[in-house]
């Protein structure tokens, strides 16, 4: 059962990675791309971690997977904020329809 759930989670994660890439390629400016990428990727990695954790029965390893995800959340959020601020200060204006 957990096997199947894990597979589903991982596949979902992969799809979110794909959506992040589509966003990175198709969205019109830095800010929108940032928006697409940081959210989709963080979630995607979370899903992959969760899927793997379901396949795992060693608590220490599950903890490690969780730690990896938390780290990516923290640094992803910070980096998104840093890049956005830098881009604003650099004189790049957000895209208007």
């Amino acid at each position: 059962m957990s096997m199947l759930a894990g597979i589903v989670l991982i596949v979902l994660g992969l799809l979110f990675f794909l959506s992040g890439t589509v966003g990175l390629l198709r969205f019109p400016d830095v800010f929108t791309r940032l928006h697409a990428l940081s959210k989709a990727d963080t979630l995607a990695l979370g899903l992959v971690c969760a899927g793997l954790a379901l396949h795992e029965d060693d608590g220490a390893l599950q903890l490690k997977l969780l730690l990896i995800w938390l780290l990516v959340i923290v640094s992803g959020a910070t980096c998104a904020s840093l890049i956005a601020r830098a881009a604003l200060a650099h004189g790049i204006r957000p895209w208007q329809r």
Partner: protein
Amino acid sequence: MTVFYLAGALFLLANVVVALARVLRGPTAADRMLSGELMGTTAVAVLLLLYGATGIEALLDVALVFAILAAMAVVTFVRRTWPEDPAADDEGESR
């Protein structure tokens, strides 16, 4: 099962190769840095899936190191490279 993990890793790799187009197209340095970040996150996921495929625990350590260091490049870029560097963007280059 092994094949499933490997196929997943392959999918992610293909995904990131497509995203490399952003490095080539730019146009601003921030865009390039973004695809670098995507590459970092994807590498973590690839390593996790390879761990699933092979069961080598050390791969989790490698993934952990990647995750810890994910912020390094972006922070250096924002603090050291970009503020001073108009040339990093393709102003003269047609996109």
